[in-house]
């Protein structure tokens, strides 16, 4: 595997008030990386440091410690952003520009020549369903349209890396689906995508990996399947399971409960699970489904965030 296009290494950021009397630690040694073709989600409650991390990667804010790299270059170099597309949260394109002019200005600012911009702009406007609005001034756009234009502007120079802050903010459900499809298409084309979103369902649908930030630190990172797996807890659906078999399961140390037409089964490990399956088949019961039980990403997220909250004192 080559060098990851997005690398954050021990990023810390301490904000000081104007006269230095108050400090806020927005990031505290956060590290993560986004590989080629990967959609990576950055999660965290408000104030966890997600936006600060993205801003450091784009050179908008300087880190107090640590370093960031984009496409192999330190983020302090403007050239590191040559192959990067960014969609900021709450972006404001100049209202006097039309959609086409917006793509022209920002495409050229990303190093494209006029001919390339003229070729690329209609394609992108078509892709984000703004063709009919190409020559309308941006100030007349709805929030969802502005968001789609922002995505087109981030893609105008066909970047290798996409950093997206709340990309579906203000977009209707159909538009949201289209944006999801578009981003997945881009990931398939080999782009590294860093997604910063509050919408956990979006993250769950789109991302291959996530990192959860809490108080500026990465408290969990991994594949969504791994983070949401609950270990040795399974859902079992089978015909012909009687109380005798369940008692036999419990004798081996397994925990098993009948719940609404299926069984909640907890085994010690995979070997134990296989032994239970062998026993079930030997008893003549018919196995229909055996699947690991997962938490939702929301459960994992809320759990991680609550772990870091100060414990409430209870009266004795």
């Amino acid at each position, binding site marked *: 595997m080559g060098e990851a296009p997005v690398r954050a290494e021990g990023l810390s950021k301490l904000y000081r008030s104007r006269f230095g009397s108050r400090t806020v630690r927005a990031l505290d040694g956060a590290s993560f990386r986004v590989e080629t073709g990967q959609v990576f989600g950055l999660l965290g409650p408000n104030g966890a440091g997600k936006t600060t991390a993205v801003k450091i990667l*784009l050179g908008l*804010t300087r880190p107090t410690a640590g370093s960031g790299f984009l496409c192999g270059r330190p983020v302090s170099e403007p050239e590191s952003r040559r192959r990067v597309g*960014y969609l*900021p949260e*709450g972006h*404001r394109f*100049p209202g006097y*520009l039309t959609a086409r002019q917006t793509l022209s200005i920002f495409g*050229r*600012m990303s190093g494209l020549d006029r001919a390339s911009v003229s070729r690329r702009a209609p394609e992108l406007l078509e892709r984000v369903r703004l063709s009919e609005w190409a020559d309308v001034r941006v100030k007349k756009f709805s929030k969802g349209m502005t968001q789609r234009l922002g995505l087109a502007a981030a893609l105008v120079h066909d970047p290798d890396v996409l950093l997206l802050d709340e990309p579906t903010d203000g977009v209707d459900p159909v538009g949201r689906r289209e944006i999801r499809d578009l981003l997945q298409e881009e990931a398939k084309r080999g782009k590294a995508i860093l997604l910063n979103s509050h919408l956990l369902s979006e993250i769950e649908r789109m991302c291959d990996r996530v990192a959860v930030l809490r108080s500026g630190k990465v408290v969990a990172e991994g594949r969504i399947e791994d983070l949401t797996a609950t270990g040795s807890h399974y859902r079992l659906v089978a015909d012909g399971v009687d109380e005798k078999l369940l008692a036999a399961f419990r004798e081996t140390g397994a925990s098993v409960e009948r719940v609404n037409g299926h069984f909640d089964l907890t085994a010690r490990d995979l070997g134990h699970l296989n032994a239970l399956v062998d026993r079930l088949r030997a008893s003549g019961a018919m196995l229909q489904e055996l699947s690991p039980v997962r938490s939702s990403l929301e459960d994992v997220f809320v759990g991680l965030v609550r772990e870091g909250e100060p414990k409430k004192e209870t009266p004795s």
Partner: protein
Amino acid sequence: MRAFTASVQEVFREAAARWTLIAYFALSTIFILLFAAAVNLDIVDGALAGMKLFGQSVDVGDNHIEIDKLVLGFESTFSGVLYFVGLFLALFATAHLVPRLQEKGTIDLYLSRPIGRVSLLLSRFTGGVLLAAADIVYLIGSIGAIVAWKTHVFHPRFFLSGAVILFTIATLMAFAFLVGVVTSSTAVSLMATYAVFFLAAILALHDRIAAAVSTEFAAKTVQALYWIFPKTAELGQATVALVAGAAAPERLANLDHFAVYGSTALFGVAALSLASWLFSRKDF
């Protein structure tokens, strides 16, 4: 370079969209057309024999008025007026360039592109100066051409006055950029820059003020401020003197040009350098 030129172009697009550019050119055009249509001169043997203003004859008496001197007088007065009016309009039209760039949700869009912060700031500055230059060239060029057409007198120095006006605009615009970077406020940038203009004009009387103050420290402060601030009053006089040439009054002809232009240029370069340094270190 593409990023730089795209940013410069955007300054023009913005000026056009906000009607600043169109309003200025429309007003200038009305003035030029009125001037072209209203003034008709009758010149005999290089002297003014008769004059009509809006079709009405103006009594020029029996005085022998050399047309060359008349044109020189008009052009130097016009350049003096344009110095003040053009400067104020140009600053008014460009003071928002930095504060608006630094707005949340806008700055991210620009800085996430492969352009250095200093280049971005300088591209806005270049755009602003070019915008002011376009306005001045249009007005001075048109008026100069009309005067030459009506009088057959051509003074290249009149066109050079535009360069002095532009130099002053660029210096004060650099200061407006500095205030814009620090405060992110168009109103404060504009007020602070106009304040510098007037304070610097008052400091033209530095010797008299220094003699009038009661302590030596205050006198030295006045003198120091005079040398730090741009020489706005002297540059206005220099604009007139440049056009008038040999015909300029003695006090204008004897201006210490090195001190006037040199110290003003230093002020502008220092303001723009400081603005660039602060902009490049700012967290957004």
